[in-house]
């Protein structure tokens, strides 16, 4: 055995330490003209394939850019973006949901020129999309797509209880739902702490009864008789018509429950229908027909103060710390051109719709009448979180604390009386809107 003296040990370990210190420099992966974009794992996997296999080579040819597409779980994007912004190092472009552009506005590059360009060329950007992406008069990010939420429902089971078309009001929906639940086919809806299906259900529900979080000046006005009315209605509606396990559901539970035939209706993106289409042999009705032939879609019913909707917005932000912001902007400009965007839009088959009006008129909508209700989804959205104020940081805080959803959940679970739940929620909002 070789004898290791203290001296030789010191000499070798000194060299090793020097190597470690030398390697301490962050390795540089980025090439001169490459753009790194982080997006979610699309619920339509074919769309990610378009980005990697169609967009990437074409961008290389058209702009000489190397496009590096990375996809992660949507829930993990805020953590990733926070870390990148704070350390000033990371991908050139982040895909951000809903109003996150407002939260990260100070870390963004102005992209107004691109928004003006494709907005003008494509019939105008939707108002809601503009509100989400414009901060202080300039575009801090670009609206890429909107995923409308519609109620997917089982046509035959609704027929069975005498509902020939989808109920137009919450009252009718409750009456129909009561019969459905009696037939062991309850409505399935989440009131859990989950980012998608819960708030896109509870916010429009609140608005359709005339309740709102704040007034236009940012004063909390949630504690109103309209809000209370909506909570009371929900409690009864929940007991009468819903699968009460929904208090613990996340965004995927209703998909599974619907596909397995446990629930008759649920507010969702088109993913239930898409899954039923793709698994036509696997998902069947009780009579053995493919499940997708028994699915239709409808917008949310109306309350005393009209019908509302909440659709999930997907936006792209070019980061200020990026060393290739120019390349990133050029890529987005290129991607938003009609002939390029169309390739991505087509594989979505209506699950995601475009940020501008021109896409409502696309011939794709003739392909499948079941998907037709999604066509005008984005256009129908009139309100955003924090209504009647702005969808700003405060609105996001209320949204992320699930205050409106929890208000309903507290009352439905019997933990609080409706009056207490409303008072609690108004109090929590008051601490945010100071």
């Amino acid at each position: 055995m070789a004898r290791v003296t203290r001296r030789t040990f010191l000499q070798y370990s000194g060299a090793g330490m020097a190597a470690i210190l030398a390697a301490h420099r962050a390795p540089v992966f980025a090439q001169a003209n490459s753009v790194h974009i982080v997006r979610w794992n699309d619920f339509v996997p074919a769309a990610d394939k378009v980005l990697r296999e169609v967009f990437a080579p074409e961008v290389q040819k058209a702009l000489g850019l190397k496009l590096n597409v990375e996809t992660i779980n949507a829930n993990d994007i805020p953590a990733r973006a926070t870390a990148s912004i704070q350390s000033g190092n990371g991908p050139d472009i982040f895909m951000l949901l809903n109003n996150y552009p407002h939260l990260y506005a100070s870390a963004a590059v102005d992209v107004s020129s691109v928004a003006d360009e494709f907005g003008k060329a494509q019939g105008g950007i939707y108002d809601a999309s503009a509100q989400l992406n414009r901060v202080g008069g300039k575009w801090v990010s670009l609206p890429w797509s909107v995923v409308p939420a519609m109620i997917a429902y089982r046509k035959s089971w609704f027929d069975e209880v005498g509902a020939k078309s989808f109920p137009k009001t919450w009252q009718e929906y409750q009456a129909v739902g009561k019969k459905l639940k009696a037939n062991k086919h309850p409505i399935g809806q989440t009131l859990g702490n989950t980012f998608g299906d819960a708030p896109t259900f509870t916010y429009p529900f609140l608005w359709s009864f005339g309740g709102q979080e704040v007034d236009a000046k940012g004063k909390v006005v949630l504690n109103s008789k309209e809000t209370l009315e909506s909570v009371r209605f929900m409690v009864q509606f929940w007991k009468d018509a819903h699968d009460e396990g929904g208090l613990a559901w996340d965004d995927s539970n209703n998909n599974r429950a619907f596909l397995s035939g446990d629930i008759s209706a649920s507010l969702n993106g088109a993913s239930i229908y898409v899954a039923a289409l793709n698994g036509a042999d696997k998902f069947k009705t009780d009579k053995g027909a493919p499940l997708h032939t028994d699915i239709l879609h409808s917008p949310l019913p109306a309350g005393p103060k009209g019908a509302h909707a909440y659709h999930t917005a997907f936006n792209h932000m070019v980061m200020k710390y990026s060393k290739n912001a120019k390349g990133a902007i050029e890529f987005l400009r290129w991607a938003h051109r009609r002939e390029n965007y169309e390739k991505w839009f087509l594989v979505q088959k209506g699950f995601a719709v475009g940020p501008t009006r021109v896409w409502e008129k696309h011939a794709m909508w003739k392909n499948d009448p079941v998907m037709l209700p999604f066509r005008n989804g984005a256009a129908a959205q009139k309100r955003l979180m924090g209504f009647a104020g702005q969808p700003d940081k405060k609105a996001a805080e209320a949204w992320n604390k699930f205050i409106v959803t929890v208000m309903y959940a507290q009352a439905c679970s019997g933990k609080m009386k409706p009056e207490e739940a409303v008072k609690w929620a108004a109090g929590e909002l008051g601490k945010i809107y100071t």
Partner: protein
Amino acid sequence: MSKERARVSPLTRALESEKLLATALLAPGVAILVLFIAYPFVMALWYSLTSVRVGDAGEFVGIANFAKAVNDTIFQMAFKNTVFYTFWATIFKLALGMWLALLLNRHFRFKRIVRASMLLPFIIPTVLSAFAWRWMFDPTFSVMNWMLYHGGMITDRLPFLSSGDWAMWCAVLVNTWRGMPFFAITLLAGLQTISPDLHEAAALDGANAWHRFWHVTWPLLLPVTLVVVVFSVIQTFSDFQLIYVLTGGGPANSTHLIATYAYQIGVGSGLLGEGAALSLFMFPVLFAVVWVQLRYLKRMENA
């Protein structure tokens, strides 16, 4: 000898002094501690006193973030939940872990395999096992509900995760399941250091099994037990992944722990300052626990 001396560099010679060598060898460890523990901790302290948001350095706001947290009903609930969760999970882990350790300390066939397999829940990454439990508790497809229902034991599904109280107990159960092997194995190691002679002597004096446990095993095992409990309290009190995966803090915020709520505020809403303040509420509690128990240990050692 003089030749060799001439060849070595002054640096190497300097390091031959015990003091300098010790410093040099300790330096990497200290550097790692400073870099990954002290620095983030000081940063968190600083953040908690400012209105820093993502991408916005903010300004000094004093204790405003802490004041907001104290008045925040969701945080109050998260704090209570954390204490509840830690208390019950630790009690169960200790009781069941002790029982298991006593059983495993006996001689039986396949002793080694059984002892090794005990550690399985502890080895599986928490995220994976929490997902498995979530499926077992699934409101619609719960395997437990299915068995009870088809066994004719229940007529309605049990609300494992959809009722706040049930969900909290489910979380305690999963944490117990996960943490118990750590208790069992550590206590088992402690048990094996206790000389069988003591038990024999006690038995000769007429002590029954309970007396032997209470007057011989328990006092001798106490130092080990205390250390395990301290570790467990720290881990359980600052638990994040289990709740994040199992319930996301719901339903109606009823299972939020301090860590999950701080994450939701700090990262989800971008309010880094407030998130840091929330998570710092864990510090004094954990510090107190560690301090009291370590002091107790020291006193016992001196006694």
